[in-house]
């Protein structure tokens, strides 16, 4: 690389940095801008002391975990099976997996309510519907990262090697496939997790007070509180991204480096 292109690179980094950091800095600044007689953390204290905040956070955490678990249970075997046995169906599965991107949340929710609204016992409870909807939202992210993991880790040959030595399917799955796509699964799971933590449309339409809904309501009533909340959710997301890194590093060093 020449000196010149290096300089171009840094210019871009600088501009991008300004673009992202200035609003963030402004938000932080605004969230701590208090009158002369109030401590700067007032907005934060207001949020943390609000029981609604904790309830919505707890609800979103539970829902995100449920969505990731539902998504993994459906997607891991499906992606593996398509990858291994029916690769020619892959374009179709890929198409189905991006449907949640294409179908607007309102359509998804209306569809769910119409179909499962009544008469399906536990399936008709709003909680189940929210979990199900989130599970569907999770699928594209999970499918993509798991499919990449399957391809890059040479899982087809590893599967054959294990089968050739007489391994049962559960042993192939838990002893060979899952450990080798662990970081792909983690990546997809954390991505989904972060996404659902901030989700607004579906939960508000189903009448839930999730973290996303709480953020919006706060924004409509308290300007500084909303800024403080934005900073906190930003920190939360970075916490998850950091976790992904740690997990990936662990996974990698446990195998002695990526291959």
């Amino acid at each position: 690389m020449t000196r010149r292109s290096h300089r171009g690179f840094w210019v871009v980094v600088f501009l991008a940095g300004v673009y992202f950091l200035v609003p963030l800095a402004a938000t932080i600044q605004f969230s701590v801008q208090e009158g002369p007689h109030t401590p700067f953390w007032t907005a934060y204290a207001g949020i943390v002391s609000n029981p609604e905040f904790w309830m919505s956070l707890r609800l979103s955490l539970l829902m995100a975990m449920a969505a990731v678990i539902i998504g993994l249970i459906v997607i891991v075997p499906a992606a593996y099976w398509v990858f291994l046995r029916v690769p020619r169906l892959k374009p179709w599965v890929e198409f189905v997996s991006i449907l949640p991107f294409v179908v607007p949340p309102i359509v998804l929710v209306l569809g769910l309510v119409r179909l499962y609204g009544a008469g399906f016992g536990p399936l008709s409870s709003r909680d189940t519907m929210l979990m199900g909807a989130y599970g569907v939202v999770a699928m594209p992210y999970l499918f993509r990262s798991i499919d990449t993991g399957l391809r890059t880790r040479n899982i087809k040959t590893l599967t054959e090697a294990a089968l050739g030595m007489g391994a049962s399917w559960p042993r192939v799955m838990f002893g060979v496939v899952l450990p080798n796509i662990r970081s792909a699964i983690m990546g997809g799971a954390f991505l989904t997790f972060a996404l659902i933590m901030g989700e607004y449309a579906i939960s508000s339409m189903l009448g839930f007070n999730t973290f996303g809904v709480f953020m919006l309501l706060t924004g409509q009533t308290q300007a500084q509180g909303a800024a403080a909340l934005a900073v906190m959710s930003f920190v939360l997301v970075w916490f998850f991204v950091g976790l992904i890194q740690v997990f990936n590093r662990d996974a990698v060093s446990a195998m002695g480096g990526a291959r």
Partner: protein
Amino acid sequence: MPFLEIDGVTRRFLAQVAVDGVSFTAEKGEFISLLGPSGSGKTTLLRIVAGFETPDAGRVIVGGDDVTFVSAQKRNMGMVFQSYALFPNMTAADNVAFGLKTRRAPRTEIEERVRMLLEMVGLEKKRARYANQLSGGEQQRVALARALAPNPRVLLLDEPLSALDARIRVNLRQEIRRIQQTMGITTLYVTHDQEEALSMSDRVVVFNHGIAEQVGTPEEVYDYPASSFVSDFVGTMNHLNAVVVDPEPGLCRVGSATLTVPGLPAGVVSGDAVTLWIRPEGLLVASGVKPDNQAIPAVVEQVIFLGSRYGMRITIDQKYPVTLDIPRQGIAVEYQSGDPVWVRLAAPPGVTRVGSTANSAP
């Protein structure tokens, strides 16, 4: 009765026939190479034997059992992949132990066997390493140990050495053969390297477009190729056009020379066109005055130093290119491009009849 029997195995992919009615057998403990160019169906056949593919026709019989439709899990074959395919989440020792654990062997027995196998491939000291902490050659040794651990009925190797550099390849070649012979295990070895196939095998199966063109010992395949494809693919073969002058003493005209060719096929008559098949080492070369009436005049095109010998390309009558070998006996050859030389047959060539038109050749 043969231990492994491949009986008329055919496998199609859409319109393409990847393996086309292949049949051969292997005795217990035999080492058989499947040799052929890229895309000739070697891997497909190996995968059919391993149970990863099902043939469209034909049978695979091991030790008297028809296993054609038995799943890979139940066949007890040991497979070594070109890409090694060690489990990255396990150490070398755990990789070797994998097949033993699926068989629920007792723990002490597993440990003992893993140690024995790792010692055999010279990697006991590196048993705790993960795949990516091992070199390619070491990974392939672990893969071999892993395949051998559960005492498979047949060992299957798919170009196990093709990703390694030349020196390691030759070492590992001998090592695989030694281990195979010690364990007395029936082995199918896929390769597109004819030298590898000839030097390791008890017998070689030569593949071309899914067809087994010849099955024979390395000597048979090299000295008596069953088809012109085999003769060209296994080693180098010169094809020299000649015309029969008199079949009785075997007189043939090659270019401007007339020589005695032993072993003309029965039934050739004067004027028949024939092809002489001559290996590079089947020709002698000399310079200076014409040594005898069996010598053919030629011109040197190129001399190539090959370490232990020289390779030389000459043309006979400015038309027929011929490749030959000159062993190096402590001296440099004095031939240069453009030099006139004499060549003569050092061994009886293979001869096939091409036609009866006397004026078409030489």
